[in-house]
């Protein structure tokens, strides 16, 4: 792939890329990840009846949980993706993003929106849309002081203008590289999804509103995080491995399969609910259909690894990426199975789903974003390597072991709950039965949290310490291109 080769030849010193914006978005993104994970740990402690701040209104666990989910989605994931976009889009389109000043405006406005969201949620202005609890003026708890959803929509339009301008300039004349296909659609999808999911449910009651909430929950993962994630993988993996993606035809199949089937699945979050059954059946069919596409993308990336099988061992970003892909394919196969009606009877409403959500959001997209940061952080600082590659190994294994054991714990807790509920055991029995699993889950969460704290410490030390000349072992992440 010629584009991948071109990327390598470009020097980081070219004014094509605004390194300050990349750096700023990474710092803020990981700041919010730490806050969001801390909130997750607090909420897990509530399930152990060990919540540190009981009876305080503004630190109520219910409100804390909204900061956990929204902080991860909008604070961490979107910010680090923006960093990746400021790095990748100018290289792929051979031109700067629209305007650096617009970039800084977006950065500060977005930071303000997220902080104001935290204030709004803690003050009790949350919205009853899962993953869209950001305060909305039109919701029953809405306040004119917290028009967050409207502001986010304006912010998303600014982001789209910022990045779609160079993509349009380049892509309207000649064929674009795979990454740009994903980026082109992600910006418009997220605007449409956000407008649909945050506003329509305030005007459509009951099952009809649930339909759009289902579409929103699913589309936020499927039409924002997934296309940006795969777009990043199609950019970073070939450029780090210094070889092209295995098959262009399979890339085409994967993209168009995702684009067609993903938006159709939202209702599968409400199986056996009061939403008309034809919508539920349709959602299940398209959910199974997309798994075929997922497998093609998975094959494409693992065939790319052919001849470079040791890269995930020796190259740290590649290791984060491919571990994330393994978690991705586990999630997606799990999804094709548990979306079935017979499985939904047992696993719906249980911890099974919570395990599934953590596997995809942290195990796949979190890992990919950490991988991207692993590659970019020393580069934007103009350094050869991380302060401590050995510490980075620790971060990787803490996150991987923590996440994998959390997934196993929550999945088994889900099965216990599901069968006890169907077996008509008293509700207390289902709570008692998973009590130890929930304790274990808190421990796994703490392991991941400490891992991320160490990652942040490593970032800080890389930033402040002058580079030493000693050879770095195990991390040829930024070895100069030959």
């Amino acid at each position, binding site marked *: 792939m010629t584009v991948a080769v071109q990327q390598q030849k470009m020097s980081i010193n070219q004014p094509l890329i605004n390194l300050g914006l990349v750096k700023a978005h990474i710092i803020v993104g990981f700041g919010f990840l730490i806050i969001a994970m801390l909130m997750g740990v607090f909420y897990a402690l509530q*399930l*152990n*009846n060990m*919540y540190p701040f009981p*009876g305080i209104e503004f630190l109520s*666990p*219910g409100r804390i*949980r909204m900061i956990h989910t929204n902080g991860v989605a909008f604070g961490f994931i979107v910010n680090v993706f923006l960093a990746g976009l400021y790095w990748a889009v100018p290289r792929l389109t051979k031109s700067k993003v629209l305007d650096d000043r617009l970039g800084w405006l977006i950065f500060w406005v977005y930071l303000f929106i997220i902080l104001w969201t935290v204030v709004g949620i803690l003050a009790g202005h*949350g*919205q*009853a849309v899962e993953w869209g609890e950001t305060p909305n003026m039109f*919701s*029953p*708890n809405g306040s004119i002081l917290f028009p967050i959803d409207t502001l986010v929509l304006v912010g998303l339009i600014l982001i789209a203008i910022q990045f779609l301008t160079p993509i349009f300039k380049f*892509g*309207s004349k*000649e*064929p*674009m590289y795979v990454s740009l*296909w994903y980026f*082109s*659609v992600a910006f418009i999808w997220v605007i*449409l*999804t956000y407008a649909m999911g945050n506003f329509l*449910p*305030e*005007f459509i*009651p*009951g*099952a*009809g*509103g*649930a*339909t*759009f909430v289902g*579409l929103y929950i699913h589309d936020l993962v499927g*039409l924002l995080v997934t296309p940006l994630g795969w777009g990043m993988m199609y950019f970073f993996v070939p450029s780090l491995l210094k070889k092209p993606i295995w098959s262009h035809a399979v890339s*085409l199949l994967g993209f168009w399969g995702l684009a*067609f089937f993903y*938006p*159709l699945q*939202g*209702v599968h979050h409400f199986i*056996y*609910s*009061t939403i*008309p059954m*034809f919508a539920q059946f*349709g959602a299940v069919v398209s959910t199974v259909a997309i798994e075929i596409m997922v497998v093609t993308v998975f094959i494409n990336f693992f065939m790319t690894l052919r001849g470079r099988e040791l890269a995930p061992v020796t190259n740290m970003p590649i290791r984060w990426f491919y571990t994330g892909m393994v978690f991705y394919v586990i999630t997606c196969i799990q999804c094709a199975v548990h979306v079935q009606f017979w499985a*939904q*009877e*047992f696993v719906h*409403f249980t911890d099974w*789903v919570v395990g599934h959500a953590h596997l995809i959001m942290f195990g796949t997209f979190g890992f990919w974003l950490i991988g991207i940061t692993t590659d970019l952080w020393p580069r934007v600082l103009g350094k050869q390597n991380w302060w401590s590659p050995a510490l980075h190994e620790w971060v990787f294994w803490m996150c991987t072991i923590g996440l994998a054991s959390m997934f196993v714990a929550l999945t088994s807790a889900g099965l216990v709950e*599901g069968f006890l*509920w*169907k077996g008509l055991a008293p*509700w*207390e029995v289902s709570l*008692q039965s998973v009590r130890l699993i929930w304790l274990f889950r808190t421990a796994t969460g703490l392991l991941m949290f400490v891992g991320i704290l160490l990652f942040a410490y490593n970032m800080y030390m890389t930033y402040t310490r002058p580079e030493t000349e000693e050879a770095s072992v195990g991390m040829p992440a930024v070895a100069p291109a030959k």
Partner: protein
Amino acid sequence: MEKTIEKFQFIFLVAGIGFFALAFIVSGVVTVNAISDLPYTSLDEMSQDVSPYFIAMSNQYPEQFETYYPGGPTSENYREALNLGRNVYIAEACWHCHTQQVRPVANEDVRFGPVSTAAEQQHELMLPQLLGTRRVGPDLSRESGFRSNDWHAAHFYNPQAVAPTSVMPRYTWFYDGKAPNKKGIAMITYMQWLGSNVEQQ
């Protein structure tokens, strides 16, 4: 074609707008249209018949009613309490751990009560919908009359006092001292309303 399919205009219009619009219509608009003829009940209509639980509370906590719901258990006060109860239910994210739907599977009709229908959810307290996707605690859509006002008053103050294995947080800010304040009365009223529009077994 080989060139067109990889150009911006084609991808943006077909995949970005076209496929999203298709899914929006097929999954969303068609589905909503299918249930659009179900009658919708507004909060004004719902609050015409004041719940006996609300009246009982006005007798039990006369000073609190004097302060927060002056005029006693009128329709207007009942409406205000229902609305505030639902708003607090959203603000405290109760719907993260409690559902408001009974499914026709997994013996849920035995445990909770009649299976939910789309018709029973077409009212203002389900705007926005609160069906829920997770059950740490039990379903609440058939809660009306299942417990007493006193049970709820004790439970919101300290869930572990009445349900020792519960992992529900304490909501002490629903109370002035030990008596429920405006929010507390509203929450109990809302709990005692849930499912009262459905014929119980």
